[in-house]
């Protein structure tokens, strides 16, 4: 089905498969349509229907609260029923040359293991090699579980045949309940990606500041792996702030302890342990954005910041980075899944 998108600067045309979400069809055609979560929560991919008909795969999506006017819809949840013309109130450009264009693919679940009482790690074994940038995410769906959910890769390599993820158990999360539910080793998953603009490349050549709440540490692990492979911290500084509630919510501490950046674990609901098995890690009491603010005061020269985690934690960290650190918006990269 033919889809025409009129952006503020110019128009684009592309084809969508029956039932395929408009956003995914546009992105895999190399058109950088606006999105953040690509999974129905943020509202960033809102568009206005000029002609044609769409079907909404998830009418109760949280991102619908940003859809207020007649004819508006979320491109990540709606599929074309016939040829469409729609309007996007942003500047849209073709995907930059050399960027990883997202595609649909499938994989097999491997190495499911518990990291804490409510966080699991698993890997997706792909049928063929895929490229992605450090800090990107993919959308995953299991057969019989409606809807895609967004998960950041924890690993980094070119031509990856395995994608590694962490997942927090959520009381009402269909996919997380599915994974936590039974033995899922060997199950098939549908994936779409890579997605996301909170990416890191060593050519950046700036000091790195990573602020993560809970499972938001996933994308930071990928960024740190990329940096490590390029021996980045021999010429640039790095600071990682990992926010958790208590020590029983901690994971990846062995991996973080081997990292050449300065890593601080912020405990929001528990005092700092008297001694720990990780002499290279700093432990501080407080919310992660407050601990980062205390530690980073006066150290924001030539910094690029990455932020990920629950939306309230991300918002609080962005507030610190804008108002205290005075970073330019270009140097604040974030993912805000909920």
């Amino acid at each position: 089905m033919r889809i025409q998108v009129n952006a503020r600067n110019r128009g684009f045309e592309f084809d969508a498969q029956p039932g395929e979400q408009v956003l995914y069809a546009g992105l895999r055609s190399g058109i950088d349509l606006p999105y953040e979560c690509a999974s129905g929560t943020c509202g960033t991919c809102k568009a206005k229907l000029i002609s044609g008909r769409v079907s909404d795969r998830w009418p109760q999506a949280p991102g619908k609260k940003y859809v207020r006017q007649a004819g508006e819809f979320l491109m990540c949840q709606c599929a074309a029923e016939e040829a469409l013309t729609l309007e996007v109130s942003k500047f849209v450009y073709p995907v930059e040359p050399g960027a990883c264009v997202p595609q649909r693919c499938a994989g097999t679940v491997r190495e499911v293991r518990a990291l804490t009482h409510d966080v699991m790690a698993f890997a997706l074994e792909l049928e063929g090699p895929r490229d992605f940038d450090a800090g990107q995410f993919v959308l995953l769906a299991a057969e019989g579980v409606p809807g895609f959910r967004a998960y950041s890769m924890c690993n980094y390599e070119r031509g990856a045949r395995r994608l590694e993820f962490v997942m927090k158990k959520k009381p009402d999360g269909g996919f997380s309940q599915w994974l936590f539910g039974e033995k899922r080793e060997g199950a098939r998953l549908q994936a779409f990606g890579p997605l996301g603009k909170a990416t890191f490349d060593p050519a950046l050549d700036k000091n790195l500041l990573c602020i993560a709440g809970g499972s938001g540490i996933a994308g930071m692990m990928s960024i740190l792996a990329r940096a490590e492979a390029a021996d980045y911290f021999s010429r640039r500084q790095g600071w990682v702030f990992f926010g958790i509630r208590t020590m029983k919510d901690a994971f990846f501490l062995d991996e973080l302890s081997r990292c050449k950046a300065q890593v601080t674990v912020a405990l929001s609901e528990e005092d700092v342990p008297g001694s720990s098995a990780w002499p290279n890690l700093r432990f501080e009491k407080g919310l992660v954005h407050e601990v980062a603010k205390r530690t980073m005061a006066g150290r924001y020269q030539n910094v690029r910041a990455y932020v990920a985690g629950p939306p309230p934690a991300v918002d609080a960290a962005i507030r610190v980075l804008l108002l205290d650190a005075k970073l330019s918006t270009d140097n604040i990269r974030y993912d805000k899944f909920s």
Partner: protein
Amino acid sequence: MAKPMVCRVADVPENTLKECEVEGGLKLVVANAGGEFVGFQAMCPHQDVPLCEGLFDGQTLTCHMHLWQWDVRSGAPQGIAEAPLQRYPLVREGDALYLGGESTALDVGELFNGLSPSILEKLSSLAKKESHPGGALLYKPGDPAEDFYVLDSGRIEFLVGRGAAPGGFMLRKGEVFGWAALLDGYPARIASARCVEDSSVLRINGRAALGVLEGDPACGFVVMRRLSALIARFLAGAGAK
């Protein structure tokens, strides 16, 4: 008619924001920028997010949703923001702030906002207000290019060249089109402009406007710099944001 009251001065401490509703239902945000009070639109021009929830340091406002930024005094977009803020002039009388009227398309506009009041007054005396129904073609390539336009309300589709369709550039309030009228050596239109919906525009003779700007070269230089940036935006391709 009495000016509508917006809020008390004490309601908006220094370097904070407050959303206010004026009699008649108009909502706006009042910012106290280091003791100076400025009023502007309540919703982000990007995606209907309340700007009173934004981050404000006394000068720059950042919408928390996608980090669009503006200088609140001028309404000028900064960083990744793609549209200016519509401002509402405020008048202080005693311990209260009143609405001084709605800012015109010229004040809001990317080309002229923040210029000296005397220049804005001269330009606005040259402006003729016109209304056009949805679907109306204002001009097409080859038409004489004597006047330029500032969009006041409605929406205009602007397309450089003769049919690099589909779709053109979708303009908003305050945006300028027909700028060939401000360029030497372009007596004819190089683009087309069509109303997507019922629209009103300010129409200004290019030569007369250049005459006004020549009387104040400092302002004229600012306008020409902004005009070159505006034209470059139409030419920009991938990665040239």
